[in-house]
Protein backbone atom coordinates (compact mmCIF):
# COMPACT_ATOMS: atom_id res chain seq x y z
CA UNK A 1 0.00 0.00 0.00
CA UNK A 2 1.45 3.30 -1.10
CA UNK A 3 0.59 5.79 1.59
CA UNK A 4 2.55 8.72 0.27
CA UNK A 5 3.36 9.55 -3.29
CA UNK A 6 6.95 10.55 -4.15
CA UNK A 7 5.75 13.97 -5.16
CA UNK A 8 3.05 15.21 -2.81
CA UNK A 9 3.31 18.93 -2.13
CA UNK A 10 4.56 19.68 1.40
CA UNK A 11 4.10 16.09 2.51
CA UNK A 12 6.91 14.35 4.34
CA UNK A 13 8.15 11.05 2.91
CA UNK A 14 8.49 7.85 4.95
CA UNK A 15 11.89 7.56 6.72
CA UNK A 16 13.37 4.90 4.45
CA UNK A 17 12.72 7.01 1.38
CA UNK A 18 14.09 10.06 3.10
CA UNK A 19 17.30 8.24 3.88
CA UNK A 20 17.54 6.91 0.35
CA UNK A 21 17.22 10.37 -1.15
CA UNK A 22 19.69 11.89 1.31
CA UNK A 23 22.30 9.31 0.34
CA UNK A 24 21.41 9.77 -3.31
CA UNK A 25 21.95 13.50 -3.10
CA UNK A 26 25.62 12.82 -2.39
CA UNK A 27 26.07 9.65 -4.40
CA UNK A 28 24.68 11.10 -7.63
CA UNK A 29 27.14 13.97 -8.05
CA UNK A 30 30.03 11.72 -7.05
CA UNK A 31 28.84 9.16 -9.58
CA UNK A 32 28.75 11.77 -12.33
CA UNK A 33 32.21 12.93 -11.31
CA UNK A 34 33.50 9.33 -11.44
CA UNK A 35 31.93 8.71 -14.83
CA UNK A 36 33.41 11.86 -16.32
CA UNK A 37 36.79 11.08 -14.78
CA UNK A 38 37.14 7.37 -15.50
CA UNK A 39 35.15 6.66 -18.66
CA UNK A 40 37.53 7.82 -21.43
CA UNK A 41 34.87 8.63 -24.05
CA UNK A 42 32.91 10.87 -21.66
CA UNK A 43 34.08 14.43 -22.11
CA UNK A 44 37.93 14.10 -21.92
CA UNK A 45 38.56 17.01 -24.31
CA UNK A 46 42.35 16.96 -23.91
CA UNK A 47 45.23 14.65 -24.70
CA UNK A 48 48.06 14.12 -22.24
CA UNK A 49 51.24 13.61 -24.27
CA UNK A 50 53.30 10.62 -23.18
CA UNK A 51 55.71 10.67 -26.14
CA UNK A 52 56.11 13.91 -28.12
CA UNK A 53 57.29 12.04 -31.24
CA UNK A 54 58.31 14.36 -34.06
CA UNK A 55 56.20 17.35 -33.01
CA UNK A 56 58.73 19.95 -31.95
CA UNK A 57 56.73 21.75 -29.31
CA UNK A 58 55.14 18.71 -27.66
CA UNK A 59 56.56 17.70 -24.31
CA UNK A 60 55.89 14.74 -22.09
CA UNK A 61 52.97 15.36 -19.68
CA UNK A 62 51.77 18.32 -21.71
CA UNK A 63 48.01 18.71 -22.12
CA UNK A 64 46.76 19.66 -25.61
CA UNK A 65 43.33 19.88 -27.17
CA UNK A 66 42.13 16.71 -28.83
CA UNK A 67 41.79 18.53 -32.16
CA UNK A 68 45.33 19.92 -32.00
CA UNK A 69 46.72 16.48 -31.24
CA UNK A 70 44.77 15.01 -34.12
CA UNK A 71 46.01 17.69 -36.52
CA UNK A 72 49.64 17.24 -35.49
CA UNK A 73 49.28 13.48 -35.72
CA UNK A 74 48.04 13.79 -39.30
CA UNK A 75 50.84 16.20 -40.22
CA UNK A 76 53.43 13.78 -38.90
CA UNK A 77 51.72 10.87 -40.63
CA UNK A 78 51.86 12.62 -44.00
CA UNK A 79 55.35 14.07 -43.56
CA UNK A 80 56.83 11.03 -41.85
CA UNK A 81 58.62 10.83 -38.50
CA UNK A 82 57.95 9.46 -35.05
CA UNK A 83 54.26 9.60 -34.15
CA UNK A 84 53.30 11.45 -30.99
CA UNK A 85 51.58 9.33 -28.37
CA UNK A 86 49.14 10.40 -25.70
CA UNK A 87 46.05 9.42 -23.83
CA UNK A 88 42.71 11.15 -23.45
CA UNK A 89 42.49 13.34 -20.42
CA UNK A 90 40.33 15.90 -18.68
CA UNK A 91 41.48 19.49 -18.20
CA UNK A 92 43.67 20.08 -15.21
CA UNK A 93 40.73 21.83 -13.51
CA UNK A 94 38.92 18.56 -13.01
CA UNK A 95 41.07 16.09 -11.10
CA UNK A 96 39.62 12.58 -10.70
CA UNK A 97 38.07 11.61 -7.32
CA UNK A 98 40.91 9.34 -6.20
CA UNK A 99 43.44 12.15 -6.68
CA UNK A 100 41.31 14.44 -4.55
CA UNK A 101 40.82 11.76 -1.90
CA UNK A 102 44.57 11.24 -1.84
CA UNK A 103 45.18 14.97 -1.57
CA UNK A 104 42.63 15.11 1.22
CA UNK A 105 44.56 12.52 3.17
CA UNK A 106 48.07 13.73 2.44
CA UNK A 107 46.96 17.28 3.17
CA UNK A 108 46.70 16.35 6.82
CA UNK A 109 49.74 14.08 6.96
CA UNK A 110 52.26 16.29 5.17
CA UNK A 111 54.26 18.53 7.48
CA UNK A 112 54.56 22.17 6.42
CA UNK A 113 57.31 22.70 3.84
CA UNK A 114 58.75 25.83 5.40
CA UNK A 115 59.77 26.39 8.97
CA UNK A 116 57.19 29.02 9.78
CA UNK A 117 54.58 27.27 7.64
CA UNK A 118 51.42 25.73 9.02
CA UNK A 119 49.91 22.28 8.98
CA UNK A 120 46.69 22.06 7.05
CA UNK A 121 44.67 21.55 10.19
CA UNK A 122 46.27 24.70 11.63
CA UNK A 123 45.20 26.66 8.57
CA UNK A 124 41.71 25.27 8.93
CA UNK A 125 41.69 26.19 12.57
CA UNK A 126 42.70 29.77 11.67
CA UNK A 127 39.78 29.97 9.30
CA UNK A 128 37.35 28.55 11.80
CA UNK A 129 38.49 31.12 14.34
CA UNK A 130 38.03 33.97 11.88
CA UNK A 131 34.50 32.75 11.12
CA UNK A 132 33.76 32.20 14.78
CA UNK A 133 34.82 35.64 15.94
CA UNK A 134 33.39 37.44 12.95
CA UNK A 135 30.05 35.74 13.37
CA UNK A 136 30.03 36.05 17.14
CA UNK A 137 30.79 39.78 17.11
CA UNK A 138 28.26 40.38 14.38
CA UNK A 139 25.64 38.42 16.29
CA UNK A 140 26.34 40.23 19.53
CA UNK A 141 25.31 43.48 17.92
CA UNK A 142 22.96 42.39 15.16
CA UNK A 143 20.72 40.05 17.13
CA UNK A 144 19.72 42.60 19.80
CA UNK A 145 19.45 45.33 17.20
CA UNK A 146 17.35 43.15 14.91
CA UNK A 147 15.03 42.12 17.72
CA UNK A 148 14.63 45.72 18.85
CA UNK A 149 14.02 46.92 15.30
CA UNK A 150 11.46 44.18 14.81
CA UNK A 151 9.72 45.12 18.03
CA UNK A 152 9.90 48.90 18.11
CA UNK A 153 9.08 50.88 15.03
CA UNK A 154 11.25 53.76 16.24
CA UNK A 155 14.37 51.57 16.23
CA UNK A 156 13.47 50.14 12.87
CA UNK A 157 12.92 53.55 11.29
CA UNK A 158 16.18 54.86 12.66
CA UNK A 159 18.44 51.98 11.60
CA UNK A 160 16.88 50.03 8.80
CA UNK A 161 17.00 52.58 5.95
CA UNK A 162 20.76 52.95 6.35
CA UNK A 163 21.28 49.24 6.77
CA UNK A 164 19.20 48.56 3.67
CA UNK A 165 21.57 50.84 1.81
CA UNK A 166 24.74 49.55 3.36
CA UNK A 167 24.05 45.89 2.75
CA UNK A 168 24.47 46.42 -0.98
CA UNK A 169 28.00 47.70 -0.54
CA UNK A 170 30.48 44.91 -1.22
CA UNK A 171 32.15 43.90 2.02
CA UNK A 172 35.53 43.10 0.41
CA UNK A 173 35.79 46.71 -0.76
CA UNK A 174 36.38 47.67 2.86
CA UNK A 175 39.49 45.51 3.01
CA UNK A 176 41.98 48.37 2.79
CA UNK A 177 40.14 50.40 5.41
CA UNK A 178 39.93 47.36 7.66
CA UNK A 179 43.70 46.88 7.36
CA UNK A 180 44.35 50.54 8.12
CA UNK A 181 42.23 50.40 11.24
CA UNK A 182 42.71 46.87 12.50
CA UNK A 183 46.19 45.88 11.36
CA UNK A 184 47.31 43.00 9.20
CA UNK A 185 46.43 39.89 11.19
CA UNK A 186 43.01 38.48 12.12
CA UNK A 187 41.44 41.90 12.78
CA UNK A 188 40.62 42.91 9.20
CA UNK A 189 39.56 39.37 8.26
CA UNK A 190 37.13 39.24 11.14
CA UNK A 191 35.94 42.69 10.12
CA UNK A 192 35.12 41.49 6.60
CA UNK A 193 33.12 38.56 7.96
CA UNK A 194 31.43 41.04 10.28
CA UNK A 195 30.54 43.49 7.52
CA UNK A 196 29.45 40.68 5.26
CA UNK A 197 27.11 39.21 7.87
CA UNK A 198 26.00 42.07 10.09
CA UNK A 199 23.68 44.01 7.80
CA UNK A 200 21.86 40.99 6.46
CA UNK A 201 21.59 39.70 9.98
CA UNK A 202 19.87 42.80 11.34
CA UNK A 203 17.35 42.81 8.49
CA UNK A 204 16.61 39.11 8.59
CA UNK A 205 16.20 39.07 12.36
CA UNK A 206 14.04 42.17 12.48
CA UNK A 207 11.88 40.57 9.84
CA UNK A 208 11.65 37.35 11.80
CA UNK A 209 10.70 39.34 14.87
CA UNK A 210 7.96 41.11 12.99
CA UNK A 211 6.52 37.78 11.92
CA UNK A 212 5.71 36.88 15.50
CA UNK A 213 1.93 36.67 15.81
CA UNK A 214 0.82 39.99 17.28
CA UNK A 215 -2.07 38.23 19.01
CA UNK A 216 0.48 36.66 21.37
CA UNK A 217 1.52 40.13 22.50
CA UNK A 218 -2.11 41.11 22.93
CA UNK A 219 -2.81 37.97 24.91
CA UNK A 220 0.12 38.77 27.18
CA UNK A 221 -1.15 42.34 27.62
CA UNK A 222 -4.60 41.13 28.66
CA UNK A 223 -2.88 38.91 31.22
CA UNK A 224 -1.45 41.97 32.87
CA UNK A 225 2.03 41.97 31.30
CA UNK A 226 3.62 45.41 31.35
CA UNK A 227 4.86 46.74 28.01
CA UNK A 228 8.45 46.57 29.21
CA UNK A 229 8.16 42.91 30.07
CA UNK A 230 6.74 41.99 26.67
CA UNK A 231 10.16 41.99 25.01
CA UNK A 232 11.73 39.58 27.43
CA UNK A 233 8.80 37.33 28.17
CA UNK A 234 6.97 37.18 24.85
CA UNK A 235 8.94 38.51 21.91
CA UNK A 236 12.25 36.82 22.61
CA UNK A 237 10.96 33.38 23.58
CA UNK A 238 8.42 33.61 20.77
CA UNK A 239 10.98 34.11 18.01
CA UNK A 240 13.78 32.00 19.47
CA UNK A 241 13.40 28.91 17.25
CA UNK A 242 13.14 31.05 14.13
CA UNK A 243 16.01 33.20 15.26
CA UNK A 244 18.07 30.07 15.72
CA UNK A 245 17.19 28.90 12.22
CA UNK A 246 18.16 32.31 10.83
CA UNK A 247 21.47 32.14 12.62
CA UNK A 248 22.18 28.74 11.09
CA UNK A 249 21.58 30.11 7.61
CA UNK A 250 23.61 33.24 8.33
CA UNK A 251 26.53 31.21 9.61
CA UNK A 252 26.69 29.52 6.22
CA UNK A 253 26.60 32.97 4.69
CA UNK A 254 29.60 34.01 6.78
CA UNK A 255 31.66 31.19 5.27
CA UNK A 256 31.14 32.60 1.79
CA UNK A 257 32.98 35.75 2.85
CA UNK A 258 35.96 33.79 4.10
CA UNK A 259 37.63 33.57 0.70
CA UNK A 260 37.86 37.35 0.37
CA UNK A 261 38.57 37.88 4.05
CA UNK A 262 41.64 35.68 3.92
CA UNK A 263 43.17 37.58 1.02
CA UNK A 264 43.28 40.67 3.21
CA UNK A 265 46.25 41.34 5.44
CA UNK A 266 48.76 38.54 5.91
CA UNK A 267 47.94 35.40 4.00
CA UNK A 268 46.43 32.74 6.19
CA UNK A 269 43.78 30.12 6.52
CA UNK A 270 42.25 27.49 4.32
CA UNK A 271 41.08 29.74 1.51
CA UNK A 272 44.56 31.20 1.22
CA UNK A 273 45.68 27.60 0.79
CA UNK A 274 43.10 27.24 -1.98
CA UNK A 275 44.22 30.42 -3.74
CA UNK A 276 47.86 29.45 -3.55
CA UNK A 277 47.26 25.90 -4.77
CA UNK A 278 45.09 27.14 -7.63
CA UNK A 279 47.82 29.58 -8.70
CA UNK A 280 50.17 26.67 -9.20
CA UNK A 281 47.42 24.48 -10.64
CA UNK A 282 47.32 21.87 -7.91
CA UNK A 283 43.63 21.40 -8.35
CA UNK A 284 43.42 18.16 -6.42
CA UNK A 285 44.50 20.16 -3.34
CA UNK A 286 42.02 22.87 -4.21
CA UNK A 287 39.16 20.39 -4.33
CA UNK A 288 40.31 18.65 -1.18
CA UNK A 289 40.23 21.98 0.66
CA UNK A 290 36.83 22.84 -0.77
CA UNK A 291 35.60 19.47 0.46
CA UNK A 292 36.95 20.20 3.92
CA UNK A 293 35.05 23.46 4.07
CA UNK A 294 31.92 21.68 2.91
CA UNK A 295 32.31 18.97 5.52
CA UNK A 296 32.89 21.51 8.28
CA UNK A 297 29.92 23.58 7.14
CA UNK A 298 27.53 20.66 6.80
CA UNK A 299 28.82 19.13 10.03
CA UNK A 300 28.25 22.31 12.02
CA UNK A 301 24.81 22.71 10.56
CA UNK A 302 23.82 19.15 11.40
CA UNK A 303 25.06 19.57 14.95
CA UNK A 304 23.20 22.84 15.29
CA UNK A 305 20.01 21.32 13.85
CA UNK A 306 20.25 18.45 16.32
CA UNK A 307 20.89 20.89 19.14
CA UNK A 308 17.96 23.02 18.01
CA UNK A 309 15.57 20.09 18.32
CA UNK A 310 16.62 19.65 21.91
CA UNK A 311 16.65 23.33 22.75
CA UNK A 312 13.21 24.05 21.35
CA UNK A 313 10.99 21.03 21.96
CA UNK A 314 7.92 23.12 21.22
CA UNK A 315 9.11 24.07 17.77
CA UNK A 316 6.84 22.16 15.43
CA UNK A 317 8.79 22.32 12.18
CA UNK A 318 11.93 21.08 13.90
CA UNK A 319 10.07 18.27 15.60
CA UNK A 320 8.28 17.03 12.55
CA UNK A 321 11.42 16.67 10.46
Amino acid at each position, binding site marked *: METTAWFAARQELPPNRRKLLAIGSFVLPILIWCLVSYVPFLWHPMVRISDPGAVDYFQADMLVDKAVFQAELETVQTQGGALPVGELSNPIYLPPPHKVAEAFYTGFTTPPASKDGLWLHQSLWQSIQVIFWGFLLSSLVAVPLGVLAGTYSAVSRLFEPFIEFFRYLPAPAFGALAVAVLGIYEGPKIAIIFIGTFFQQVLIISNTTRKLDYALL*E*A*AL*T*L*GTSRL*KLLRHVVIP*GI*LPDLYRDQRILLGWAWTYLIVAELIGTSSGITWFITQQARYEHFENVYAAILMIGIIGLGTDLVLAWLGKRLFPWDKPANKQ
Partner: protein
Amino acid sequence: MDNTTHDYLSQSDAVKARFDKLKQREVILEVKGLNKVYKSAQGETTALSNVSFKTHRREFVCVIGPSGCGKSTLIRILAGLESYSGGQVLLDGKPVTGPGRDRGMVFQGYTLFPWLTVRKNVMFGLEMNGMSSEEARREADLWLELVGLERFASAYPHQLSGGMKQRVAIARALVNQPRILLMDEPFGALDAQTRCKMQAHLLDIWRNVDVTILFITHDLDEAILLADRILVLKANPGEVQELIEVPVPRPRSVDQLFTPEFIATKARLEALIHPPASIASDEVETVKPHMIRFTNVADNVE
Protein backbone atom coordinates in the same frame (compact mmCIF):
# COMPACT_ATOMS: atom_id res chain seq x y z
CA MET B 1 -44.09 34.78 9.32
CA ASP B 2 -45.84 34.84 12.62
CA ASN B 3 -45.91 31.11 13.19
CA THR B 4 -44.51 31.27 16.72
CA THR B 5 -46.86 30.36 19.48
CA HIS B 6 -44.73 32.08 22.06
CA ASP B 7 -43.60 35.67 22.47
CA TYR B 8 -39.89 36.09 23.25
CA LEU B 9 -40.75 38.94 25.60
CA SER B 10 -42.93 36.91 27.93
CA GLN B 11 -40.97 35.32 30.75
CA SER B 12 -41.98 32.61 33.17
CA ASP B 13 -42.09 33.66 36.83
CA ALA B 14 -38.88 31.85 37.67
CA VAL B 15 -37.07 33.54 34.83
CA LYS B 16 -38.46 36.93 35.75
CA ALA B 17 -37.40 36.46 39.36
CA ARG B 18 -33.93 35.55 38.22
CA PHE B 19 -33.64 38.68 36.12
CA ASP B 20 -34.87 40.84 38.98
CA LYS B 21 -32.23 39.35 41.23
CA LEU B 22 -29.56 39.77 38.59
CA LYS B 23 -30.35 43.46 38.12
CA GLN B 24 -29.99 43.96 41.85
CA ARG B 25 -26.31 43.03 41.59
CA GLU B 26 -23.70 45.72 41.16
CA VAL B 27 -22.80 46.87 37.67
CA ILE B 28 -19.42 45.52 36.59
CA LEU B 29 -19.13 47.01 33.15
CA GLU B 30 -20.80 50.07 31.81
CA VAL B 31 -20.47 51.30 28.23
CA LYS B 32 -21.81 54.77 27.53
CA GLY B 33 -22.24 56.24 24.05
CA LEU B 34 -19.22 54.43 22.65
CA ASN B 35 -18.01 55.54 19.22
CA LYS B 36 -15.24 54.13 17.12
CA VAL B 37 -14.11 55.49 13.78
CA TYR B 38 -11.29 53.82 11.84
CA LYS B 39 -9.33 56.18 9.66
CA SER B 40 -7.55 54.58 6.75
CA ALA B 41 -6.35 55.48 3.29
CA GLN B 42 -9.73 54.51 1.85
CA GLY B 43 -11.48 56.94 4.17
CA GLU B 44 -13.29 56.68 7.48
CA THR B 45 -15.25 53.66 8.69
CA THR B 46 -17.60 54.07 11.60
CA ALA B 47 -17.28 50.72 13.31
CA LEU B 48 -19.33 51.59 16.40
CA SER B 49 -21.81 54.36 16.92
CA ASN B 50 -23.33 55.33 20.23
CA VAL B 51 -23.17 51.89 21.84
CA SER B 52 -24.44 51.78 25.44
CA PHE B 53 -25.14 48.87 27.78
CA LYS B 54 -24.45 47.56 31.30
CA THR B 55 -23.54 44.17 32.62
CA HIS B 56 -24.09 43.04 36.17
CA ARG B 57 -21.89 40.83 38.29
CA ARG B 58 -22.01 37.15 37.25
CA GLU B 59 -24.12 37.96 34.26
CA PHE B 60 -23.55 36.14 30.98
CA VAL B 61 -23.95 38.52 28.05
CA CYS B 62 -23.68 37.49 24.43
CA VAL B 63 -23.06 39.93 21.61
CA ILE B 64 -24.41 39.00 18.26
CA GLY B 65 -24.66 40.74 14.92
CA PRO B 66 -23.88 40.38 11.22
CA SER B 67 -20.31 40.10 10.08
CA GLY B 68 -18.51 43.44 10.17
CA CYS B 69 -20.88 45.09 12.60
CA GLY B 70 -18.09 45.82 15.04
CA LYS B 71 -18.29 42.97 17.55
CA SER B 72 -14.58 42.39 17.63
CA THR B 73 -13.97 46.12 17.72
CA LEU B 74 -16.22 46.40 20.75
CA ILE B 75 -14.58 43.60 22.71
CA ARG B 76 -11.09 44.82 21.85
CA ILE B 77 -11.99 48.27 23.14
CA LEU B 78 -13.26 46.69 26.34
CA ALA B 79 -10.04 44.73 26.67
CA GLY B 80 -8.07 47.94 26.21
CA LEU B 81 -6.40 46.71 23.02
CA GLU B 82 -8.03 49.35 20.86
CA SER B 83 -8.60 53.07 21.39
CA TYR B 84 -12.02 54.61 20.94
CA SER B 85 -13.18 57.86 19.43
CA GLY B 86 -15.93 58.85 21.86
CA GLY B 87 -17.99 57.74 24.82
CA GLN B 88 -16.98 55.96 27.99
CA VAL B 89 -16.06 52.47 29.15
CA LEU B 90 -16.28 52.00 32.90
CA LEU B 91 -15.19 48.93 34.82
CA ASP B 92 -16.43 49.05 38.40
CA GLY B 93 -17.09 52.71 37.72
CA LYS B 94 -13.52 53.49 36.69
CA PRO B 95 -12.63 54.33 33.08
CA VAL B 96 -10.65 51.74 31.11
CA THR B 97 -7.33 53.08 29.83
CA GLY B 98 -5.48 50.05 28.54
CA PRO B 99 -5.19 46.30 28.84
CA GLY B 100 -5.14 44.88 32.36
CA ARG B 101 -5.53 41.68 34.28
CA ASP B 102 -8.97 42.73 35.57
CA ARG B 103 -10.32 41.90 32.11
CA GLY B 104 -9.44 38.44 30.87
CA MET B 105 -9.65 37.71 27.17
CA VAL B 106 -10.05 34.56 25.12
CA PHE B 107 -9.40 35.11 21.43
CA GLN B 108 -10.91 33.37 18.46
CA GLY B 109 -7.49 32.31 17.19
CA TYR B 110 -5.24 30.23 19.37
CA THR B 111 -3.01 32.49 21.39
CA LEU B 112 -1.36 30.10 23.82
CA PHE B 113 2.37 30.73 24.08
CA PRO B 114 3.85 27.88 22.07
CA TRP B 115 7.14 27.88 24.00
CA LEU B 116 5.45 27.29 27.36
CA THR B 117 3.88 24.11 28.62
CA VAL B 118 0.19 24.13 29.40
CA ARG B 119 0.90 24.71 33.09
CA LYS B 120 3.39 27.50 32.39
CA ASN B 121 0.87 29.13 30.09
CA VAL B 122 -1.62 29.26 32.92
CA MET B 123 1.04 30.50 35.33
CA PHE B 124 2.10 33.27 32.95
CA GLY B 125 -0.30 35.97 34.14
CA LEU B 126 0.40 35.26 37.79
CA GLU B 127 4.15 35.38 37.36
CA MET B 128 3.99 38.56 35.32
CA ASN B 129 2.23 40.10 38.27
CA GLY B 130 4.86 39.11 40.74
CA MET B 131 3.57 35.87 42.23
CA SER B 132 6.25 33.37 43.21
CA SER B 133 6.45 30.46 40.81
CA GLU B 134 5.72 27.98 43.61
CA GLU B 135 2.44 29.66 44.41
CA ALA B 136 1.60 30.28 40.76
CA ARG B 137 2.08 26.63 40.05
CA ARG B 138 -0.35 25.62 42.77
CA GLU B 139 -2.96 28.08 41.51
CA ALA B 140 -2.46 27.01 37.92
CA ASP B 141 -2.95 23.35 38.76
CA LEU B 142 -6.27 24.20 40.45
CA TRP B 143 -7.53 25.93 37.34
CA LEU B 144 -6.26 23.22 35.05
CA GLU B 145 -8.28 20.78 37.08
CA LEU B 146 -11.32 23.00 36.67
CA VAL B 147 -11.00 22.83 32.88
CA GLY B 148 -10.18 19.13 33.10
CA LEU B 149 -6.66 19.30 31.69
CA GLU B 150 -4.51 18.42 34.69
CA ARG B 151 -3.17 15.42 32.76
CA PHE B 152 -1.81 17.72 30.06
CA ALA B 153 -0.05 20.11 32.41
CA SER B 154 3.38 19.45 30.93
CA ALA B 155 2.29 19.14 27.31
CA TYR B 156 3.10 21.88 24.80
CA PRO B 157 0.21 23.68 23.07
CA HIS B 158 0.97 22.09 19.70
CA GLN B 159 0.18 18.71 21.22
CA LEU B 160 -3.39 19.75 22.11
CA SER B 161 -6.61 19.73 20.08
CA GLY B 162 -8.36 22.98 19.30
CA GLY B 163 -10.92 22.52 22.07
CA MET B 164 -8.23 21.74 24.61
CA LYS B 165 -6.30 24.82 23.58
CA GLN B 166 -9.33 27.02 24.21
CA ARG B 167 -9.86 25.39 27.59
CA VAL B 168 -6.30 26.24 28.52
CA ALA B 169 -6.90 29.78 27.27
CA ILE B 170 -9.93 30.02 29.53
CA ALA B 171 -7.95 28.74 32.52
CA ARG B 172 -5.13 31.14 31.67
CA ALA B 173 -7.53 34.08 31.70
CA LEU B 174 -9.47 32.98 34.78
CA VAL B 175 -6.43 32.28 36.93
CA ASN B 176 -5.96 36.06 37.13
CA GLN B 177 -9.46 36.27 38.67
CA PRO B 178 -10.61 39.00 36.29
CA ARG B 179 -13.77 41.02 36.95
CA ILE B 180 -14.98 40.17 33.47
CA LEU B 181 -14.08 37.51 30.96
CA LEU B 182 -14.18 38.74 27.35
CA MET B 183 -14.55 36.03 24.73
CA ASP B 184 -14.41 36.75 20.99
CA GLU B 185 -15.95 33.80 19.14
CA PRO B 186 -13.80 31.41 21.16
CA PHE B 187 -15.44 28.29 19.73
CA GLY B 188 -15.73 29.60 16.19
CA ALA B 189 -13.04 27.30 14.81
CA LEU B 190 -14.24 24.13 16.52
CA ASP B 191 -16.35 21.36 15.00
CA ALA B 192 -20.01 21.15 16.01
CA GLN B 193 -19.56 18.36 18.52
CA THR B 194 -16.58 19.81 20.35
CA ARG B 195 -18.33 23.10 20.31
CA CYS B 196 -21.35 21.64 22.07
CA LYS B 197 -19.17 20.16 24.79
CA MET B 198 -17.30 23.40 25.22
CA GLN B 199 -20.52 25.33 25.66
CA ALA B 200 -21.70 23.00 28.41
CA HIS B 201 -18.26 23.18 29.96
CA LEU B 202 -18.22 26.96 29.87
CA LEU B 203 -21.61 27.11 31.59
CA ASP B 204 -20.24 24.77 34.27
CA ILE B 205 -17.27 26.99 34.87
CA TRP B 206 -19.40 30.11 34.92
CA ARG B 207 -21.67 28.53 37.49
CA ASN B 208 -18.75 27.76 39.79
CA VAL B 209 -16.67 30.89 39.42
CA ASP B 210 -17.44 34.44 40.35
CA VAL B 211 -17.00 35.92 36.91
CA THR B 212 -18.99 38.02 34.48
CA ILE B 213 -18.80 36.92 30.86
CA LEU B 214 -19.12 38.91 27.66
CA PHE B 215 -19.25 36.45 24.82
CA ILE B 216 -19.23 37.21 21.11
CA THR B 217 -20.72 34.78 18.65
CA HIS B 218 -22.50 34.77 15.35
CA ASP B 219 -24.21 31.46 16.16
CA LEU B 220 -27.76 32.22 17.32
CA ASP B 221 -28.23 28.86 19.10
CA GLU B 222 -25.02 29.39 20.99
CA ALA B 223 -26.08 32.85 22.08
CA ILE B 224 -29.46 31.68 23.35
CA LEU B 225 -27.99 28.64 25.03
CA LEU B 226 -25.37 30.61 26.94
CA ALA B 227 -26.68 34.11 27.57
CA ASP B 228 -28.74 35.82 30.17
CA ARG B 229 -29.04 38.74 27.83
CA ILE B 230 -28.12 39.12 24.18
CA LEU B 231 -26.84 42.40 22.80
CA VAL B 232 -27.82 42.55 19.15
CA LEU B 233 -25.76 44.88 16.96
CA LYS B 234 -26.52 46.02 13.45
CA ALA B 235 -23.94 46.90 10.87
CA ASN B 236 -22.93 50.16 9.14
CA PRO B 237 -22.55 51.75 11.54
CA GLY B 238 -22.44 49.29 14.44
CA GLU B 239 -25.30 50.26 16.68
CA VAL B 240 -27.24 48.49 19.41
CA GLN B 241 -30.45 47.15 17.96
CA GLU B 242 -31.86 45.48 21.00
CA LEU B 243 -30.80 44.01 24.32
CA ILE B 244 -32.84 40.81 24.62
CA GLU B 245 -33.48 39.05 27.91
CA VAL B 246 -33.41 35.36 27.12
CA PRO B 247 -36.61 33.74 28.48
CA VAL B 248 -35.18 30.20 28.40
CA PRO B 249 -34.95 28.98 32.01
CA ARG B 250 -31.72 27.80 33.60
CA PRO B 251 -29.98 25.40 33.96
CA ARG B 252 -29.59 25.21 30.21
CA SER B 253 -28.90 22.25 27.98
CA VAL B 254 -29.22 21.35 24.30
CA ASP B 255 -32.51 19.66 25.15
CA GLN B 256 -34.04 23.12 25.31
CA LEU B 257 -33.30 23.79 21.65
CA PHE B 258 -36.92 23.08 20.67
CA THR B 259 -38.72 24.65 23.61
CA PRO B 260 -41.15 27.45 22.65
CA GLU B 261 -39.05 30.11 24.47
CA PHE B 262 -36.01 29.04 22.53
CA ILE B 263 -37.78 29.05 19.19
CA ALA B 264 -39.36 32.42 19.87
CA THR B 265 -36.06 34.00 20.84
CA LYS B 266 -34.33 32.56 17.83
CA ALA B 267 -37.05 33.85 15.53
CA ARG B 268 -36.62 37.30 16.99
CA LEU B 269 -32.86 37.17 16.51
CA GLU B 270 -33.28 35.94 12.94
CA ALA B 271 -35.62 38.81 12.24
CA LEU B 272 -33.14 41.32 13.65
CA ILE B 273 -30.07 39.99 11.98
CA HIS B 274 -31.55 39.02 8.64
CA PRO B 275 -34.51 41.40 8.22
CA PRO B 276 -36.56 40.01 5.28
CA ALA B 277 -37.02 43.38 3.57
CA SER B 278 -33.41 44.38 3.57
CA ILE B 279 -31.85 41.18 2.24
CA ALA B 280 -31.31 42.76 -1.15
CA SER B 281 -29.44 45.66 0.39
CA ASP B 282 -26.97 43.36 2.10
CA GLU B 283 -24.46 43.07 -0.68
CA VAL B 284 -22.40 40.30 0.84
CA GLU B 285 -25.29 37.93 1.32
CA THR B 286 -26.83 38.51 -2.12
CA VAL B 287 -26.95 35.45 -4.34
CA LYS B 288 -26.71 35.97 -8.08
CA PRO B 289 -30.12 35.49 -9.65
CA HIS B 290 -28.83 33.61 -12.69
CA MET B 291 -26.17 31.16 -11.72
CA ILE B 292 -24.07 29.74 -14.48
CA ARG B 293 -24.43 26.00 -14.75
CA PHE B 294 -21.16 24.09 -14.76
CA THR B 295 -22.63 20.61 -15.07
CA ASN B 296 -24.38 18.56 -17.67
CA VAL B 297 -28.11 19.36 -17.73
CA ALA B 298 -28.98 15.70 -17.43
CA ASP B 299 -26.71 15.25 -14.43
CA ASN B 300 -29.24 16.44 -11.90
CA VAL B 301 -28.56 16.09 -8.21
CA GLU B 302 -31.96 17.07 -6.82
